[in-house]
């Protein structure tokens, strides 16, 4: 994302607040609901993200549990994608971005000065909004990660890794006989599953998904949601989504963000029947957003 794009988002945020006559200081200082879980995989405390002198996220604390699916919802520009990208330090690629706060993966601070982002990103994988397979063959797409991280003992092992990743992503049966075809030649839904296979191939602990289905048709979306359900027995999955119904369908916990703050977090079924905070209620019923 370019700087101009970020700036546009920030300007929109300010405008939205103005339009709604909200004073940003009116927002709650404390998140409603239980932010912590038992045996969390990742913990975040008092995270703040600035782009230049604009504040994108303020005082966000949240736990990501083991083998759970948690969804981030909220209106455009609320900071959910920004927070997601903090978890695997993808925000490092944006020059004006400064992240403060404590984010830990299995207890280790991921923003410590001596931390190398490369292995971090192998343990915290990411799937993006628009499917972005490498312009290489299907095999090379999945094999790239294991190759550069040296995960395979030999060529045969590499082939097995690729096969298993594609199987877990539900794509093997469709591509096993054409692994040398370009990855970009697949349909949108297949490409996204290829990207998921690519993320799985490096054996992550957590998979971050930034609106993975927004570019897909309903059938492809349903396939991915089924896949998320299957994967959640092995991996923690954090999914940012614009679709409330998708959050309701796939996630066990839901976190509602608004204008850079975490307003409420709770079990999805409870939250969608009776949210604790009025702002959450207004957002998910469509009164405000």
């Amino acid at each position, binding site marked *: 994302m370019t700087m101009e794009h970020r700036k546009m988002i920030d300007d929109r945020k300010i405008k939205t607040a103005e339009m709604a006559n909200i004073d940003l200081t009116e927002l709650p200082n404390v998140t409603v609901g239980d932010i912590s879980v038992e045996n969390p995989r990742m913990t975040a405390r008092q995270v703040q993200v600035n782009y230049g002198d604009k504040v994108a996220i303020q005082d966000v604390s949240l736990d990501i549990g083991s083998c759970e699916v948690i969804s981030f919802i909220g209106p455009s520009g609320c900071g959910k994608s920004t927070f997601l990208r903090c978890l695997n330090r993808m925000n490092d690629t944006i020059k004006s971005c400064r992240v403060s706060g404590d984010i830990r993966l299995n207890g280790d601070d991921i923003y410590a000065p001596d931390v190398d982002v490369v292995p971090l990103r192998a343990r915290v*994988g990411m799937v*993006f909004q628009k499917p972005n397979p490498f312009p290489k063959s299907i095999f090379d797409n999945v094999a*790239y990660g294991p190759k550069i991280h040296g995960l395979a003992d030999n060529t045969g092992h590499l082939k097995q890794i690729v096969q298993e990743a594609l199987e877990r992503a539900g794509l093997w049966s469709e591509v096993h006989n054409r692994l040398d075809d370009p990855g970009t030649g697949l349909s949108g839904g297949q490409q996204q599953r290829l990207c998921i296979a690519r993320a799985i191939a490096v054996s992550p602990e957590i998979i971050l998904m930034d609106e993975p289905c927004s570019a897909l048709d309903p059938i492809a979306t349903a396939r991915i949601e089924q896949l998320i359900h299957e994967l959640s027995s092995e991996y923690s999955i954090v999914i940012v989504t614009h679709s409330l119904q998708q959050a309701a369908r796939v996630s066990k916990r839901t976190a509602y963000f608004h204008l850079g703050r975490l307003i409420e977090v709770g079990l999805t079924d409870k939250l969608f029947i009776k949210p604790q905070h009025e702002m959450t209620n207004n957002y998910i019923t469509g009164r405000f957003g």
Partner: protein
Amino acid sequence: MNDTAKGLVSPKIATERVAASMAKRKKRERNFQRLGRSAIAVALAFLIVLFVSIFAKGIPGFFQYYVEIGVEIDREKLDPTGDLTLQSLYAGDARGVIRSSLYAELDVEGRSDKRAAGKLISQGAEQRLRKLVYDDPSLMGTKQTLRFALDDDVDSFLRGFIKRETPEKDRRINDKMIDYIDRLQAEGKIVYAFSDYLIFGSASRNPEMAGIYGAFIGSILTLTVCLLIAFPIGVATAIYLEEIAPKNRITEIIEININNLAAVPSVVFGILGLAVFIGIFGMPRSIPLIGGVVLALMTLPTIIISSRAAIRAVPPSVREAALGVGASQMQTIFHHVIPLAMPGMLTGTIIGMAQALGETAPLLMIGMVAFIVDVPGSVTDPGTVLPVQIFMWADFAERMFVQKTSAAIIILLAFLITMNAAAIIIRKKLERRW
């Protein structure tokens, strides 16, 4: 209908008004198209005129007149010491051998007649004979029918540029020579054939012996040096500026300067090369190495700018995908960004090389205009390049040089087109990945 209505027009009225505006809009577009087409036609016409004139003048330059005579390959005369070394051959009298054969053919007696006959054949003939004998000593002592180039004045006469009607004292050929020429022609001994001199000969004051070989090799050497310097440095600079350098004031200043350098007249780079490499470092003039360096300096901005554009054109989604899977910045650049940017980088390089191929001014400044007869064997041998050779030939007075100049231009164009074609093929092969 209320004409003072403000705001959005109702669909019905809109339909009417749009229909009404169509005629005028279409007319404007038709005029514009007509203008465009006529501009193209004019450009095409000029192009055709240009090519026709080049080819009209140039094609004849690929041919020249030869004479075929029987030659007694006299061993003693050619190889006085008898050991067939070059020294011996050069000490020998190849010219005499050829002349005697010619005199025999034409039945020439008398000194002035002999002089006339001698002027018929090019001075390059003796080198040919020496080379022939050196390569194939078994020809010694035999009589062979050999083909030798005719002197350029004879050639011009045969082409009709020197006219019979002109008074003898104003002509470059005297009547006796014309007489001999007519006789040889009548016997069918004069041949109009493809000029091997043009391709394989080097610089020479004799037009019939002049060729582009030396300049051609010089161009190849110079361009190779240029490519080997400019491409890696240019690509590496582009990568550094786009991917690695922090976005601060210094980087901005570097960028501005590179962009400006692309517009600097090329002769300035020649002056730079002259002052720095030749003046300060004391390197020899006129060598392809210096020429290549100067051209590299000139081409670098083009390569850098187009490579940067190619790198910028790589969608950020590919970078994010690579980073997301745990690739380091270097791995992202080398495994993903560069392969995708390569077609664009190559395009920039092709453009730069094509420019460099045709550059004359900077090379003149560093002295690659010297009259070099020998073909440069390495980048440190003195040499010249094709455009400079053409430039020099354009200066000479002899009529034959006119044709050869146009022929050399055609060769230069062919060289350019081949280079471009090769590069396009390479680029297409790399683009297939998408």
